């Protein structure tokens, strides 16, 4: 996994919050309680980034120090810049520190698309689906014609009776939900809608 590959660039000794603080252990004998305030303060005392310290250079100078934060949507990706934009030429050397080809995919690699079905097959799919909707479900049709269930849905539509039956089944299942499950499901839908607004 990617996490195992990623380590902080700084050596451990420069990260003081990872080390046990010596002053704490020394004061243990004399003091009864460790002050939690002091402890947290000491742990949080992280040195500022080296680029923000005083540098030896004389005169005004510009440094390139990209922040450790999620990218902003106002900074158009290089690929999306039109060709006549001056920024496109400027941003050539920017590298992200990882190689895009080496990163793992979110989904498993999709099967190669075959495009092997011809109109007569599609006619048959439609016929089968209409003839016996209970027997020929999307998955079964997909298995038989070696395509994806999505393709079946694109090609044909279930009959009205089948839709009615499916609706009743869903209602029967939902009627057995308690308040907790119902609320959890509703919350999930609300969260899902919030993704689109980027909240």
């Amino acid at each position, binding site marked *: 996994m990617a996490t195992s590959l990623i380590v902080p660039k700084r050596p451990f000794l420069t990260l003081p919050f990872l080390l046990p603080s010596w002053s704490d252990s020394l004061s243990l004998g004399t003091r009864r309680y460790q002050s939690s305030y002091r402890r947290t303060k000491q742990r949080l005392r992280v040195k500022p980034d080296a680029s923000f310290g005083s540098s030896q250079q004389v005169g005004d100078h510009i440094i390139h120090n990209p922040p450790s934060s999620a990218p902003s949507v106002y900074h158009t990706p290089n690929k999306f810049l039109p060709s006549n934009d001056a920024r496109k030429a400027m941003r050539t050397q920017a590298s992200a520190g990882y190689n895009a080809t080496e990163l*793992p995919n979110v989904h498993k690699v999709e099967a190669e698309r075959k495009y092997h079905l011809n109109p007569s097959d599609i006619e048959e799919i439609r016929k089968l689906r209409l003839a016996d909707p209970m027997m020929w479900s999307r998955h079964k049709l997909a298995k038989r014609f070696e395509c994806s269930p999505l393709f079946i849905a694109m090609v044909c539509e279930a009959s009205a009776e089948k839709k009615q039956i499916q609706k009743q089944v869903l209602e029967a299942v939902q009627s057995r939900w308690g308040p907790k499950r119902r609320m959890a499901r509703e919350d999930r839908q609300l969260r899902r809608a919030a993704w*689109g607004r980027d909240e």
Partner: protein
Amino acid sequence: MKRLQLQRWSSTVLSPRARTSNRLHQHLCSSSLRHQSTVAAVQESTPELKYRLNNAHKRSANLQYPSPPVNAALDSAKLASLHARLYLPSRLPLQTLARTLVDASADSNVDFNNESLATLGHDLLTYYTSEHLLCTYPRLPLSVVFAAMYAYVGPKTLAAMSKEWGVDLATLPGGEVDPGYLQFKRVPPGTVLDAETEQNGKRKNWRKTVTSKVVYDDEFGDPIKGSSNSSVGVPAELARATSVRALMGAIYLHAGRPAAKLFFEQHFLSRSLNISQLFNFSQPARDLTRLCARENFEKPVAKIISETGRLSRHPVFVVGIFSGQDKLGEGAGASLLEARERAALAALKGWYLYSPLNVRVPSSMEEEGASPWNPAHVDLGEVIS
């Protein structure tokens, strides 16, 4: 292009006392009058008393008018202070400022209400806003342009602005009211305001596309309402918005285009709006695939950049969307699906929120000594799926 003689027109607005020559002097007179009427009240001298008595007579005589007479504007301390507070151009006389504060529901006479000025101001406002939006963010989808227009010059914003200017509402319009108050007829309590939308419900069904909104609807993407029945009254928000629009029109009429544009930039464009929060995507991943296909980029692929706690209760996945070697967007989420959706959304926003360097708007060419015009970036349009 030939210059329009605004000066000549603006005098017609002030029909009773058309004095184009020295408005500044007029302005000074009005302010000094105000000082007399307020400060000198201490001394209680006889001419002062006479003056006040005269005033009282005038007030009762004014009762016959539906809105304050034109002369009353010069005596109003409220109006003079509003004029100074907004740093309005001194060419804009107090009488016109008073007229911008009279709604059509208070005075149905078009010579005395702000309806005509508001029409002009509304066109100016929407023109300046839309040219700003289209030049700054040339790839913005139309529905977001509508939303941004609404945020900049929508009635809610204008009403808020009028409140921030310190314009007070008159309880009831009338000739005896101080012209510094916004005069309009209030809606009686219990009136249903959205009665029209129910009637329009049928029409909405067959018009769903954004393109039809461009043709048929107003600049905020709302269906155009018929002329509202002003005898019933208007809500305060609408009356405030109309008066702000009328003020914009009045500035254009009296002080000219540069002043109007400056007023727009200082009061409207200076407000803060985060355009990236106006988007609401339903299927960002699909849109992004369409976009990449349209622009001949490689197919976008979602890849995990980093993750933590996959088997724990609170996992975090950081997923990037790559097209070839280039990263288009990045998102973090508690599930791979969520992270991927957010990454696709970030990539789409990155596309839509492109802003060219050194933005110039077409109306900047109207300034004197403007540098030659460079064509603005024009985009193909939004992704339709």
